[in-house]
């Protein structure tokens, strides 16, 4: 696991998100009302909507395209929908947001 510094938490709007481009594709960073930050793949399991543009509340993000609700801890769509997104570990130290990525296996 490699930890990458992404920047200050204030660069991610509260109750919203940003995304980062990575070798593994876009990853959405979503910040809730308690300043917790979650990282999930930036493609909604429904039709690939950009989750970084969704509404964040608690541990849920609402996809901006068709309002699927994704549990940010489990990475799973909530009923009645089915599907999941990959989740990534995030650490916050002194306002710095760190993203954990597996090293690409050669």
């Amino acid at each position, binding site marked *: 696991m490699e930890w990458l510094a*992404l920047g200050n938490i204030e660069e991610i709007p509260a109750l919203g998100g940003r*995304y980062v481009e990575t070798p593994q594709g876009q990853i959405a960073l979503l910040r*809730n*009302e308690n300043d917790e930050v979650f990282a999930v793949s930036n493609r909604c399991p429904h*039709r690939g909507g950009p989750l970084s*543009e969704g509404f*964040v*509340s608690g541990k*849920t993000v609402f996809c901006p395209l068709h*309002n699927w609700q994704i549990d940010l801890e489990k990475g799973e769509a909530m009923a009645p929908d089915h599907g999941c997104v990959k989740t990534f570990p995030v650490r916050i130290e002194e306002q710095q947001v760190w993203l954990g990525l597996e090293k690409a296996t050669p």
Partner: protein
Amino acid sequence: MMNPVPIQHRKARLVVVGNGMAGIRAVEELLKMAPEIYEITVFGDEPHPNYNRILLTPVLAGEMALEETILNPLDWYAEHGVTLHTGSRVTAIDRVRRQVLTEDGRTTPYDRLLLATGAAAAIAPIPGNHLPGVFSYRDMADVEQLTHSSDLGGEAVVIGGGLLGLEVAHGLRARGMGVTVVHRRAWPLDKQLDARGGKLLQTAMEARGVRFLLGKESAAVLGDTHVSGLRFTDGSEIPADVLVMTIGIRPRIEIAQAAGLQCEAGILVDDTLQTYDPRIYAVGECVQHRGQTYGLVAPLFEQAKVAANHLAEYGRMRYQGSVTSTKLKVTGIELFSAGDFMGGDHCEEVTLLDSSQGIYKKVILRDNKVVGGLLYGDTSIGPWLFQLMRDGTDVSAFRDNIVFGETHLGDSGHAGENQASRLADGAEICGCNGIAKGSIVKAIREQGLFTLEEVRKCTKASASCGSCTGLVEQLLASTLGGFYDSAPKKKALCGCTELSHQEVRDAILAERLLSVRQTLAYLDWRHPGGCATCRPAINYYVRTAWPAEGLDDAQSRFINERAHANIQRDGTYSVVPRIYGGVTSPAALKRIAEVAERHNVPMVKITGGQRLDLLGVKKEDLPQIWADLDMPSGHAYGKALRTVKSCVGTDFCRFGVQDSTRLAIALERGLERMWAPHKVKLAVSGCPRNCAESTIKDFGIIGVDSGWELYVGGNGGMKVRAADLLCKVKTHEEVLEVAKAFLQMYREDAQYLERTAPWVERVGLDHIKAVVVEDLESRRQFAARMEFALSQEKDPWAEAISGRLDIHAAPLRRIPA
């Protein structure tokens, strides 16, 4: 040592006695849960595969063919590896050897046995009851014989005026026989109806040519070699060529009883549908559970599910008995009855009788709960009533109107009309999620949905753009049988709160709540972060109440309004610059063309709103495209003023009587950047030929000789509504003032996402006229508030270009490989 003996891995054997509705339903449920564990053998003494017994009357009446009633064709048994023996009666159960014996001498071993032998028609114990021409009404064989006999015409007498008796009377009448129903009580269907309902039913059946002999006890069937008539205990007689006995049913318990299983009226079972022998289960009309036997399919299906659950060795479910309701299936007669419909001590009755329409409704309440009811003539509220009864809902809030059900529709659709019910099942209701009417109705029925929220959760219909909300509400209304209260006095804004839109709005004004987060906190939101439904609404309410001080929270705006562009299905965006009144210039067109070329915009399209749309733009490129265009945003992405369409008008058109383009441009300049509860479209036509289609716009203007006619509340799109004439005015200035006043009133009053069409219907045109036309001072104030609100809004594209607005176009970081 010797080689180990291979263990014969044999599947357990399940034998089912009775190839009818309950038994086969249990097998179906079992196959769903555990398709592999049993080798299943079914015995049925009828020659048919499982058919739908409740459709016998339509077959008799000639309304349906026998084949149409087959539920499980022979292929079904083969496909599922179920061995079926038709025409094979089980005569004994050997519980010691664990095998069943059939009439034709076969013995079949079982590990588990399921008894589903149903019931037989009861036969009146009177002389002559076995004469040819005397029938029972239970199975396909009865229907076949009745069909033959009735072909000869003549007189039929039906003994027993219950559900089956009336059905067979209807069927025989439809086949052309003269029919008399003999019943020992004073009115037919006395187990489902009170005297008044019974009389209404009798009248309706008599109008169809069925005669009744009430209060008569049969004494003997007359005839030597064939039935010829019926004698009563009072000595009177009537002639009969066909006699049908429908005096009740008797659970078929003989083989169970002979095998020593405990039986009373039916085979006794516990809450797991197990008999006294743990290897033997029983379901259907043959069982008695908690002292109760059933003669309807709904409870049997519930039993089948539980029995299957235990046979599948899940062992989790319990059957706790059923509450039943009945409907009569005689074409054209609507009747519904459930629970205690007679009332009595400690009960209250709410009744409605409309003899001229043949409508009678009676609801029995005890302690403000529905305990029963009967509906005759109009059964539309039946399912709702039944639900209230099963749920034990406290109905004190609407008890006075309970017999009417609730018929409020939602905020759209045409007053009183129900378009949705007329649509075909395949008709798409929710375009966003591709959901057809059929699947919504199915979900409402099968999953017992009652609210819009539930439909959204279960089907996704109306969960996206919401434009089909009205239709979904209508479907709820028609499917739930008239009851569906979409607009109760108080409807919570969303699942995060109990408060209604209006209450939240009032609080924002009264408490000077200046942001979404402040509002959520102050009003104790269940989820401190709100949800995708409440946040945009509250942001709108805050901005409307406090145009200067209120915080416009980007994270509480939909993606389009946050990015100031329309997101497309592939995640790209579209860019629509404002072209005032649809009038452009060569220079502006050139600039748009150049920008499109420079940025390789995949598609340039003329919109329905008379402007140009650059489609397929990546978010990262938006700020640069805006900068290159150097034009104001067209707000084509917002719940906001979209366009003011115009026709050419007097400048060029030979018919024109007014300068429509100049007024359209003035209006669009006067209203641009206006946010609203929903999108707002305007149009100006230069004469009554109305080329700009002003009459399907939120605010439409038509030039006439003497000035301008102003129309409001029009809508194109899915639910077309022609606009209403608001007033006539003379000058451009007046048009502008009325437009501003009307739209400000809409902004301040309508619920978020409510368009002008339903809003105008809701508040009433007269009220709107009084506020924004007739009262000049009020009109001026509304217009002034609009102008103040607009003065606080800046062009978002210009803001983004100057760096004052960050739409987060670029990724937070790019991590190289």
